[in-house]
């Protein structure tokens, strides 16, 4: 299996997605500072920061899920694109002849592809989320952007949140890929990812106090759906013909 994953890495340009992950992290870091300074900017104009959106960004319990949601949306779409490039495109039409000509179990090749994309998305999002929030937290501690201090307890909360969100983003990518596989379409995969990830963001803003439990439930549901569609796809690929 490790050999198959390394072969996937050799024949696909993973560097594109590494760069994309970095860009996502930098852009979200920029947004984080913008949101963080929002209440102060408004206050300097004489507007009292009592809006719910501002409240979210005045505590770490509100701030961490919000930044996480931005990462979730971005990485879920990136995961769908990766899945579409690594999997959907390679089983599309006559191109499938190439993969089907190897004397390797088709299910093993598909498994290697999905594991690679799932793993890459989860790890990249986990690292980016931790790095961006921690960096923001340290700067906030130094210059006082947020009224609260970023302590070990916040960092542990961030760790817990990042694990759940990373798995959620990868699961969304997997389910979106299966939907895109029906028409062998990249756009269908991306649109599916956006549709799947949309409700998570809405739930967050509506119930910020229960965001972690909601994300956990969402992650478990999508992970189970992801596993089911993956197993169904394995069967489908095994029976596929190179027409």
């Amino acid at each position, binding site marked *: 299996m490790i*050999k198959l994953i390394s072969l996937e890495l050799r*024949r696909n340009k993973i560097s594109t997605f590494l760069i994309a992950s970095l860009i996502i992290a930098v852009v979200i870091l920029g947004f984080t500072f913008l949101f963080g300074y929002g209440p102060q900017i408004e206050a300097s104009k004489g507007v009292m920061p009592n809006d719910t959106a501002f409240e979210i960004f005045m505590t770490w319990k509100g701030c961490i899920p919000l930044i996480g949601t931005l990462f979730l949306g971005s990485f879920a779409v990136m995961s769908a694109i990766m899945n579409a490039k690594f999997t959907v495109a390679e089983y599309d039409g006559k191109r499938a002849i*190439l993969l089907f*000509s*190897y004397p390797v179990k088709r299910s093993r090749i598909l498994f290697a592809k999905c594991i690679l994309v799932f793993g890459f998305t989860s790890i990249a999002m986990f690292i980016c989320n931790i790095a961006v929030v921690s960096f923001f937290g340290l700067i906030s501690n130094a210059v006082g952007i947020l009224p609260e201090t970023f302590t070990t307890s916040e960092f542990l909360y961030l760790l817990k949140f990042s694990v759940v969100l990373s798995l959620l983003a990868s699961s969304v990518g997997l389910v979106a890929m299966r939907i895109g596989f029906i028409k062998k379409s990249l756009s269908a995969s991306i649109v599916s990812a956006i549709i799947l990830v949309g409700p998570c963001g809405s739930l967050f803003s509506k119930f910020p106090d229960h965001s972690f439990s909601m994300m956990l439930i969402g992650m478990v549901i999508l992970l189970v759906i992801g596993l089911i569609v993956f197993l169904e796809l394995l069967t489908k690929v095994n029976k596929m*013909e*190179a*027409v």
Partner: protein
Amino acid sequence: MNTKIAVETKNLCKEFDGKSVLNHLEIRVDQGEIYGILGTNGAGKTTLLKLIAGLMEPTEGGAYVLGENSWEQRNKVLSNIGSLIEVPYFYEHLSASQNLSLHLEYMGVSADIGKVLRDVGLSDTGNKPVSKFSLGMRQRLGIARSIIHRPKILLLDEPINGLDPVAIREMRELFILLKNKGMTILLSSHNLSEIEQTVERVLVIANGTLIEVANLEELKNTHQNNLENYLIGRLSGGKYND
């Protein structure tokens, strides 16, 4: 003489959406021969090769490679096959040698990539990505990929497509060399002269039905000056009989 069978089809049928593409095809290819499949466009040549390569499931009957069912034992079959079927696809951002190296990894064997690239006339491509290759170069690379893992059986679907006359001759010589080394070659073409100059036995196929299997030398002797007309007559179902 006890000749071993390399490829065999038994009552092989294939339908697409209820439309029959191959009808109860029975062929037998002996080990070490170059076997031609001649047919017009849409006659079922590519479908036949795909069924032999285990890329498609027969609607009825079966294809067997070295005694193994192509669809049911496809991984065993695929390790004995080299194929160039339809337009060859590659990893476009990789060079010729990187593509071949990946192929070898998947096939689980090692080989001298430089030598094979020299054999097909691609030794000077260096790190040039395949996306910059011409049609002829892609075809040569497709042939290189089909032979590099030293398969026992080679399936070639219109292998001279996109090649210039010099390359066609070089490839023909290469196929004969491979045959002399013991490789069995199934070569499909709609090009009569290609079939005439390369194969030993020819299967004529029209609308998915076997019209004739003949030894080419015997055909040449029987139809000394009008073999082309004879074959066109067979392919056209008698419409252009000489």
